[in-house]
């Protein structure tokens, strides 16, 4: 079943040469794109053309191209990861677009994610939040047998739901407040559901939230947009658990 060919598309894309320079939109025409191609393959083809025309190709983050590394981060036609549900940009395929479409591509827009170049943003803030407490404080070795602590099926499953977060930042890019609550909640909730993580649950919740605030992410106003655009469908019920963990921690101070 050969895929249909899109004869012509217009790609309107954010160009910004460096963090300090001013950015602008530019529109490029592109031809003969197979609907079986991925969105990033379309950008590869556009870049090939730009390079051959002596122009600077569009810089964008990408790596695994199978929806798990969390590197790709494009805001397409006003939606994080584009017009489909439960996918990353690299899993978006051109069959979601029609002949003659103009496709607008922007980087994640959030104060805490400054643009580095074109569509690439700096997500170091996410790293800093993890450094603040996104771990269980155990060293390598001297660990009891894996079956020593039974963990209920449902608890393990719920922890896994939260742990599916790929750290892409779609939640922040989507949120009108640029809040990182879903990202923080995913880690706090995963570890709060497991006995291993309970020991330092309070410290974790306090420190990660404090770091998130310090880095300038906005507050959560429960619009639920993050959950909708999360490529891994991480539920905002984890935000509820984060709030519970955080409040318990605060009250015990």
């Amino acid at each position, binding site marked *: 079943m050969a895929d249909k060919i899109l004869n012509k598309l217009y790609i309107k894309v954010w160009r910004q040469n460096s963090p300090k320079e001013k950015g602008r939109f530019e529109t490029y025409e592109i031809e003969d794109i197979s609907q079986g191609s991925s969105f990033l393959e379309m950008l590869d083809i556009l870049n090939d053309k730009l390079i051959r025309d002596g122009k600077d190709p569009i810089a964008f983050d990408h790596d695994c191209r*199978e929806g798990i590394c969390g590197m790709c981060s494009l805001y397409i036609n006003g939606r994080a990861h584009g017009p489909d549900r439960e996918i990353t940009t690299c899993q978006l395929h051109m069959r979601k677009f029609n002949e003659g479409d103009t496709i607008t591509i922007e980087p994640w827009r959030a104060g805490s994610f400054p643009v580095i170049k074109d569509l690439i943003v700096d997500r170091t803030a996410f790293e800093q939040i993890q450094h603040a407490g996104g771990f269980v404080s155990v060293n390598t070795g001297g660990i009891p047998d894996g079956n020593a602590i039974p963990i209920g099926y449902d608890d393990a499953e719920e922890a896994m739901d939260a742990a599916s977060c790929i*750290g892409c930042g779609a939640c922040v890019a989507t949120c009108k407040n640029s809040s990182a609550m879903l990202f923080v909640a995913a880690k706090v909730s995963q570890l709060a559901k497991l006995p291993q993580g309970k020991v330092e649950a309070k410290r974790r919740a306090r420190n990660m939230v404090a770091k998130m605030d310090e880095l300038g992410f906005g507050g959560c106003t429960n619009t639920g947009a993050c959950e909708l655009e999360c490529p891994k469908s991480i539920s905002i019920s984890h935000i509820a658990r984060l709030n519970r963990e955080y409040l318990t921690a605060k009250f015990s101070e």
Partner: protein
Amino acid sequence: MSKIENKIPQGPLAEKWSKHKSDIKVVSPANKRKLDVIVVGTGLAGASAAASLGELGYNVKAFCYQDSPRRAHSIAAQGGINAAKNYQNDNDSVFRLFHDTIKGGDYRSREANVYRLAEVSPLIIDQCVAQGVPFAREYGGTLANRSFGGVLVSRTFYARGQTGQQLLLGAYSALNRQIAKGSVKMYTRHEMLDVVVKDGKARGIVTRDMVTGDVKSHGAHAVVVATGGYGNVFFLSTNAMGCNGSAAWQCYKKGAWFGNPCFVQIHPTCIPVHGDQQSKLTLMSESLRNDGRVWVPKKKEDAEKLQKGEIGPNDIPEEDRDFYLERRYPSYGNLVPRDVASRAAKERCDAGFGVNNTGKAVYLDFKYSIERLGIDVIKARYGNLFQMYEKITDTDPYKEPMMIYPAIHYSMGGLWVDYNLMTNIPGLYAIGEANFSDHGANRLGASALMQGLADGYFVLPYTIGDYLADEIMTPKIDTDAPEFKEAEKAVTGRLEKLFNIKGTKPVDYFHKQLGHYMWDYVGMSRNAEGLQKAIDGIKKLKEEFWKDVLVPGEMNNLNPELEKAGRVADAIEMGILMAQDALDRNESCGGHFRDESATDEGEAKRDDKNYTYVSCWEHKGEDKDPVLNKEDLVFENVKLTQRSYK
């Protein structure tokens, strides 16, 4: 007679590692603080090593090319991780895991290394559980297992179809804890471009800051390369776009031997190529073969109709389906090892029975297990993989069988290391997929995660002490030394050279050409004529590349094309070495199949008399042929037999 010192301890197999641990030196905590270690790469091997070394008290500098250590390609491993826990009471043991791995690798790996791998495997599971890795559980709260190819027991631990992700996030969290403590300094968006050897020892690396373009030296008392494999030499593979063998290649060019470069794994279950706009291939986990049945039509006319799109797979009646793996290998059936399954798929497609419009695909059908277990069970086991398949292909695998075809996936070959995981350059270590050591000529499913974490958590932290104990009097490495300045100059010179060619063709053009040579002649089946063709062709491609590549953008800015240009320049050279190694090895073993060496039934035929060795290639200079050293493989505990999964 092998002149190669592999440092394998004497004594009975099961006691070697314990004995070795008691024999090697240990560094005191006060001295650890004075010692610097560089770890390049933050996948399972690199992240677990960097975290563990930081915990021990060394000063660690870790590097990755991504914007976060969490994005290393270990994240994409789906199916699981093996460990000899025997939780299922199915008679698993350290010896059985060892034996399966040696046999699965077609007797081309070291007994001692593989035994150690099996021996530490149970510790890995404990460690990951302690970190909060949400492994699948039974209702009673104990850990669940599944089966993988090439084995008869259930020893694979998993977290849905995202095991690699969860294990990496575990190692990443341990790494983050050390970063927060200051024992690990993390450099993201940095690419290693050279290793610096001073007075015969590895003393540091040269990196390029991928955001600013700054080229800078970093000194250390030891350098650990954990940069993964070189599957991207083939252009199309299941590797991430950024995966590359360049760090290993730089080590090779500084004198480290490259072991078994021709051993690459072709994974049988990947989503087939859709056309020439394809940039990479997506794996469908081997775990799917637990519940999926592989088939093609029995009748050629049905295959032709399927290829033309005149009929669908569900139109083929039961009796006209050829479950060729079950037919050819009744005892292992759909769970034969990867190399066997890949070749069997190719055989059917080459004979004209392939499906898809290209004729290059076979079916992986879940109809039978859905009938047997119900759709909910299948959904719980593989939901995310089915969703991934649907997004890419636009067909629903609950209703129609998946179409799959083999693709390049993993490199068993890599930097040669001794039992301590040290290359032949003192102070230079290679761990995880970057070394050659544990998988022989074919890796079993769910063993890559096991090896990466074994090396990083439980092997390197011990063995590196033996070397560093003699370095406690060495002061901080001075990166103003001439060796560093020369290396920086060479790196900058090469980048400028690439940038200034200003030819007519983008980097990808050359990468794709390289990929064609590799897939056509150094792929699933190889022969002397084709390999020579590949060597000659790639050599010409190398000349053309250095005359005509076009690198746009700026030197001192983020420039993905410049990064790619350096990697592809290395990949071209690697391709030549892979073909040379494949040409030398005139036997079939594991993933390396020589047409000249097959049984009457078309199975791989090893030649133990002439090829029971590790090929260790030594670089001799830019335009000189490399020299082949051989490390003889000695088997004292297993009997070499023709591998059979029938």
